[in-house]
């Protein structure tokens, strides 16, 4: 039995003229990181809403097919039960902040209070996540007066503090500086190492290439390509589908076209470095 599974899932929003998701089938295994990519409007967020159980309960509309989470069909889950199993980081950090709390500390504690976590444990968890996200200096600040990137860190912290088994994360680094972005990917990687199952929507393709175990490409509601990250990105034709390709994959392709291919097609910087240094030493030996 797979950890999460979609069987022939098709979904249409109320009043919409087209299906937002079209006959999607996929198996998700526990403890893996899945990158979800594709052009805007393709259905990535809809896919996240579905996996979080917001479809159809919150949005209405027509859902056919089945979605199993830990073996149980999503329509059979209690919403409170889902809330404590799946953490959802929304696409827009400006809407994730509740707006009703006076300090960043209380904002992060809010979700834990709702889950009924004990006060002492709340304090401990909040203290840990603010450290992890390097926002200790902001805990007394008003969440509504933060910079965009600071808000996004707070939104991320509030959800990982909940320590759910499954995380659905929709574009978590859109407002972050490059250093902050790589910090977030490090944290996501760490969460995966702890056994969490993670669905991650992200446009920063270089990082998806480096961290994701599998990649799903969604276009106009269809799962047009999926599979092991290295295989998906070896196909540079994807560029024609509105999907960005890692610069390193394009470099690998350029090398091939120049008749000097890497021994294995590199999609990450460290793979390319290894190939180049190897080539360099071969040259010297000859």
């Amino acid at each position: 039995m797979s950890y999460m599974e979609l069987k022939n899932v098709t979904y249409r929003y109320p009043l919409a003229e087209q299906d937002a998701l079209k006959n999607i089938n996929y198996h998700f295994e526990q403890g893996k990181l899945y990158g979800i990519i594709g052009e805007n409007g393709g259905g990535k967020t809809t896919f996240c809403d579905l996996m979080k159980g917001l479809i159809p309960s919150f949005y209405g509309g027509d859902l056919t097919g089945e979605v199993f989470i830990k073996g149980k069909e999503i329509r059979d889950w209690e919403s409170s039960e889902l809330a404590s199993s799946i953490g959802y980081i929304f696409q827009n950090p400006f809407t994730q902040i509740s707006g009703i709390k006076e300090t960043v500390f209380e904002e992060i504690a809010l979700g834990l209070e709702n889950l009924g976590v004990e006060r002492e444990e709340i304090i401990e968890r909040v203290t840990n996540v603010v450290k992890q996200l390097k926002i200790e200096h902001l805990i007394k600040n008003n969440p509504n007066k933060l910079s965009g990137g600071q808000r996004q860190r707070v939104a991320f912290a509030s959800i990982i503090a909940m320590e759910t088994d499954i995380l659905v994360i929709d574009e978590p680094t859109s407002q972050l500086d490059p250093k902050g972005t790589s910090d977030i990917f490090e944290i996501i990687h760490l969460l995966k190492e702890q056994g969490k199952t993670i669905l991650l929507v992200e446009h920063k393709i270089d990082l998806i290439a480096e961290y994701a175990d599998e990649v799903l490409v969604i276009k106009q509601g269809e799962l047009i390509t999926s599979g092991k990250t290295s295989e998906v990105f070896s196909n540079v034709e994807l560029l024609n589908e509105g999907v960005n390709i890692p610069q390193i994959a394009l470099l690998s392709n350029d090398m091939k076209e120049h008749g000097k291919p890497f021994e294995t097609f590199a999609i990450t910087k460290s793979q390319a470095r290894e190939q180049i240094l190897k080539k360099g030493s071969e040259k010297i030996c000859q």
Partner: protein
Amino acid sequence: MSIEVQNVSFAYPNGYVANENLNFTIEKGERVAIVGQNGAGKTTAVKLLNGLHKPTQGEVLVDGTNTKERTVAQISKYVGYVFQNPDDQIFNNTVRAELEYSFKHSKLTAEEINTRVERAAELTGIQAYLNMKPFDIPYSIRKFVTIAVFVALDTPYLILDEPTAGQDINGINRLAKLMDILQDEGRSVITITHDMEFVADNFSRVIAMANKRIIADDSARNIFWNNEIVAESNISKPQIGELAEEIGSKNKILFRSELLEYLTQ
């Protein structure tokens, strides 16, 4: 014709000092990227340029006029600021109304306004959304709605606060093309972004900020290949540049074509 920022510091009403001693000039028709760590003070700084913030010290001059002597509404005819969060900017019921709103007190005829609106919608790729409610359309398109407002108004200076956030490759390409067109028309574009490839591809001048201050104002190549600046402002080289450095190239490579040449020479 230029925006001049002279020894400017700014503190929020709660006393928090967010900018310290900023000095720079944006010439008419110039294109500049502003990069730097979250919370460095980038948004705060550009809000000083259109009068949303008034300096607590120093002066901001727009074409010679001190922003302290003008209202935001007056300055906005010259300096358009597109908010980081589109929802802070949008308040009309349809996209078209949002674009037309800024012409409320304008002397243009209805026909001229319509031509401007249509052209702005075309350049930003939002024609299909003109009659929709702004909050029914996706964030990435909503951002283009807020940009279209100032494209239509034809402000000589345009400030884009993180327009690349959440954009897919089509959106990024559309932004690049839009900036080219605006530059051809002689308009200045100041863009805050965390997308380093976008910076390398589209800007020759880059301002890097860290801890309330400007720490560098230089070419993209010099900024990306100065590791102290990169570290202090929490930015990174484009990945191709990082790879070039790791394999020992000293050529300040930023682009794939350059690395390819280096590897295949």
